[in-house]
C-alpha cells in the first residue's frame, strides 16, 4: 500500500508539466531563431486548452493492485506542435512576432517554476517524513 505522501501523484504531475513546458520552450526558441526566415510559420504545442485543462484536472486514480478500478481520466494526448492560427504574415511569408514569443517564454518559465515548487515541497515533506521516521 502506498503511503499517503504518494497518494496524489504530485511528483508525477510536476514531471509531466515540466516535460511539456520544456518541449514548448524548444518550439518557442525555434520561432525566435527563425524570426527573419522567409516563409517560416510560428509553431506551438497544439491543444493549449488541453494543457490548461491538464493542470486543473482532478488527480488520476492510483492503481496499486490489480483489483483497483482504472481511472476515468485518460492519459493526456500527445501534444503535437501545430502552426499557430491568427498571425499575420509579412511580405516574405514569415509570421513570427518576437514579442509574442518572448512573452510566452516568460510565462513558460513561471509555470515551470510553479511545477518545480510543487515537486520541491513534496520532496521536502518526504525528507521530513524519512527523518522523523528515524527517531
Amino acid at each position, binding site marked *: 500500500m502506498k503511503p499517503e505522501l504518494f497518494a496524489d501523484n504530485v511528483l508525477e504531475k510536476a514531471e509531466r508539466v*515540466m*516535460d511539456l*513546458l*520544456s*518541449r514548448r*520552450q*524548444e*518550439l*518557442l*526558441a*525555434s520561432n*525566435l*531563431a*527563425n*524570426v*527573419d*526566415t*522567409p516563409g*517560416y510559420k510560428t*509553431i506551438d504545442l497544439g491543444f493549449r486548452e488541453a494543457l490548461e485543462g491538464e493542470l486543473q484536472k482532478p488527480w488520476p486514480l492510483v492503481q496499486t493492485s490489480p483489483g483497483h478500478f482504472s481511472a476515468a481520466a485518460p492519459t493526456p494526448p500527445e501534444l*503535437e*506542435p501545430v502552426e499557430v492560427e491568427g498571425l499575420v504574415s509579412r511580405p516574405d511569408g514569415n509570421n513570427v512576432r*518576437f514579442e509574442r*514569443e*518572448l512573452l510566452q*517564454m*516568460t510565462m*513558460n*518559465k513561471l509555470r*515551470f*517554476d510553479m511545477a*518545480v515548487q510543487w*515537486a*520541491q515541497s513534496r*520532496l521536502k515533506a518526504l525528507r521530513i517524513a524519512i527523518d522523523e521516521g528515524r527517531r
Partner: protein
Amino acid sequence: MSLLNAISISNSGLTAERQRVEATVSNLANARTTRTPQGGPYRRRSVIFEAVAVSDDFGRELQNRITGMGVRVKGTIEDPRPPQKVHDPGHPDADEQGYVSFPNVNPVEEIVNLISSARAFEANLTAIGLSRQLIERSIELGR
C-alpha cells in the same frame, strides 16, 4: 533533451543574425565604393536564411515528430538591382556619357536591417538565458 535543443536552436539564431550583420555592415562601409577588383561598383550583398533541423536525435526523426528548427544562412547573394547612376563627368570612374555607377546600397534599408538583426540577436540571447534557467531549476530540484 528539449531544453538542450532549445539552446542549440537559439545559438543558430545568434550565428545567422551575426552573419546578416556582417553583410549589412559590409554594404554600409561600401555604400560609395565605385571600383572593385572585379570591376564596376560594389554590389550589395544579402544573406538568405533557411530553417534547418539542429536536433541530431535520430529517434525523433523516426517518430516523425515536428521539432523546433534552427536557422542557418543558406548563402550570400548579390542584389540584382542595378547600380545608381549619377551624372558627374569629372569623377575618375565616370563612363563615356559622364555617369558614375554607385552601389545599389540604400543606407536607410541597411540601418533598418541592422536594427532588426540586433533585436533578433538580443531575443535569442534572452531565450538562451531562459532555457538555461529552466535547466538549472531542474538540477536544483534534486538537491
